């Protein structure tokens, strides 16, 4: 009987994006398109129906020239841990057919395309608009089909898709480690395509539970924050910014509220779980 590998501890893969380093070049988006066989349309001007697993949002401080400041926020799926850090992410519990699920061993939110029947309840539940619907059959120019990634299935019309933190790369790295008799992956063995493509090294990826991974300390830095933290979705995508107006743009606050205090409170509450 074959002996199964045993997981010594739970992993919690996450991402830290340094917004002070991001130039908004879009290399992450291009890499993601290529890596994950994300189809595109001849006319991409209707962004509300564009397929992309990571998109770069442009925000500014609302001040007129010469005080204008701009920040670019790359937004993949936030891979939420959910209200009680148990995988009760907004999309997972609502999916009627278990087409989306939370992997307790990695913390990655999956999407089974052949299970999804396109009810779009998960899209309604996701506050980050990270989930995309396939409004059309995927089509690539004839020659481009030769460049499709054989490790990632193409998605059909009428289903929802989203960023998987390049899960196929995790599977490959895990298989390799298993063959070599290892249980643990090194940080550089499993990296997402967007993290590798980023020319300014703004994107770091790794196990948020592992002190040897860069994301461990980065996610705990004073300038770290997450989008819409007050909703208790507990995303595993962290952002860094030294600018207070950028940190304020990450969430909603009532007049007179101090974002830093509220964020600290939310962080402590999440840490107790």
């Amino acid at each position, binding site marked *: 009987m074959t002996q199964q590998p045993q997981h010594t501890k739970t992993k919690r893969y996450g991402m830290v994006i340094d917004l002070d380093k991001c130039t908004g070049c879009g290399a992450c988006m291009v890499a993601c398109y290529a890596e994950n066989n994300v189809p595109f349309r001849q006319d991409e001007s*209707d962004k*509300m*129906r*564009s397929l992309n697993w990571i998109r770069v*949002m442009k*925000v500014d401080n609302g001040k007129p020239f010469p005080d204008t400041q701009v920040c670019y*926020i790359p937004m993949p799926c936030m891979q939420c841990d959910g*209200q009680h850090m148990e995988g009760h992410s*907004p999309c997972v*519990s*609502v*999916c*009627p*057919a*278990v*087409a989306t699920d939370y992997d307790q061993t990695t913390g990655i939110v999956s999407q089974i395309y052949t*299970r*999804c*029947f*396109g*009810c*779009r*309840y998960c*899209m*309604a*539940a*996701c*506050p*980050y*608009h990270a*989930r*995309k*619907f*396939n*409004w*059309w*059959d995927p089509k690539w120019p004839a020659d481009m089909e030769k460049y499709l990634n054989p490790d990632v299935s193409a998605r*059909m*019309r*009428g*289903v*929802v898709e989203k960023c998987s933190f390049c899960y196929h790369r995790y599977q490959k790295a895990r298989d390799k480690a298993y063959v070599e008799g290892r249980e643990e992956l090194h940080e550089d063995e499993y990296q997402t395509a967007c993290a590798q493509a980023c020319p300014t090294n703004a994107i770091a990826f790794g196990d948020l539970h592992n002190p040897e991974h860069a994301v461990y300390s980065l996610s705990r830095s004073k300038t770290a924050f997450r*989008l*819409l933290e*007050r*909703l*208790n*979705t507990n995303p595993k995508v962290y952002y860094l910014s030294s600018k207070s107006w950028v940190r*304020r*743009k*990450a*969430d*909603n*606050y*009532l*007049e007179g*509220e101090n974002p830093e205090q*509220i964020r600290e409170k939310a962080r402590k509450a999440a840490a107790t779980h």
Partner: protein
Amino acid sequence: MTTPAIPEGVKRCPTRQFTLWLAVVGAVLLWGVYAMFLIWYKGLNQTGMNDAYGFALWIWADLAVIALGGGAFFTGFLTYIIGKKELKSIINYAVIIGFICYSSALLILALDIGQPLRGWFIFWHANVHSMLTEVAFCLSCYFAVLTIEFIPLVLENPKLDRIPFLHHLSHNLHEVMAVFAATGVFLSFFHQGSLGGVAGVLYGRPFAFREGLLIWPWTFFLFTWSAAAVGPCFTMLITWLTEKITQKKLVRPEAFQLLAKISGWMLLTYMIAKIADTWYWAAVTAPSKGFSLMDFYSNNPVYGIWILIAELVICGIVPALILITRKGRENKKLLVTAAILAVLGVCINRWVMVLQVMAAPLLPFHDWYMYMPTWQEVATTILPVAYGAILISLAHRYLPVFPHEKELNPGQ
């Protein structure tokens, strides 16, 4: 005019007139069927929906018809379980209207999924934590119950009634109808509630999210309550409309009066609960997520505070007050106005709980999302109305829907 297929002792319009009416409504139906074909063949790109507006007109139509179809389960509950004999005058019609509403909801659901051939996955791969799974199971089961409740009436058609087996089957089904009425009430409580839960559990959407009891958000109970309150109003409204079109008295006035009174008190108590829910959400839930009430009602071209006033006051409190007073109920114009307002109120509520939820911005750097349905969505939403009109016309013509019609129209 009487033929062997028309119930004895009642008068119906000439066949030519009836056929012409069916042709007109049938044309509308065909327009909807064509749009339905386009959607199934070409996909949901035929709609005005997008990635931010994944829930739109159809989901609203679904929620609205299910709420309005609530007259079937609540009238059935009052007639068979509570024993309100006066309502026997209207129960058959309530069941038919409920049947139309639920079959329409199922049809719209079949349109509103990206992979229609996989619709059965909701049963096969059921996620017990999903409110939509509960909706699918209870809704399908309740539709089966409504069909069983409808069958004896169909079998009472004079031609079918002559067949001994069908005659006895119909008689026996009538005998056990209380069992189905009770089952219908149980199922309706859960599916109406789950539909409320669909939006209420969205904790990533502060406009929809509600605190609650155990696993149920308040909206679970509010949806069931509002359907029980407004469903009978819709039944009364359609009955009144049928009376106007056929120029006949079809239901005993005491049935109307009792249903209106119960509906009024249900609506009033619902409004008290709804206002309490809105206040708690505006004062506690939304601020805890960083939103003030007016964040959801300003800086956009459509969703102003008027919508809240229209839902709670004009289409909530006002019809409730009319219906609970004897003078209000006995004045036919006021009664019909109140029923129309109540129906509009529940439709606004369902609209808000679906479309405004999708429209409201979540991140500070997002804007309001506006949405315009395409003609295909509009046509397929009107399709069930045409289907309902045809079914009602056929039922009224060939089935003894109103047991007191002969007695109420002695001259005819």
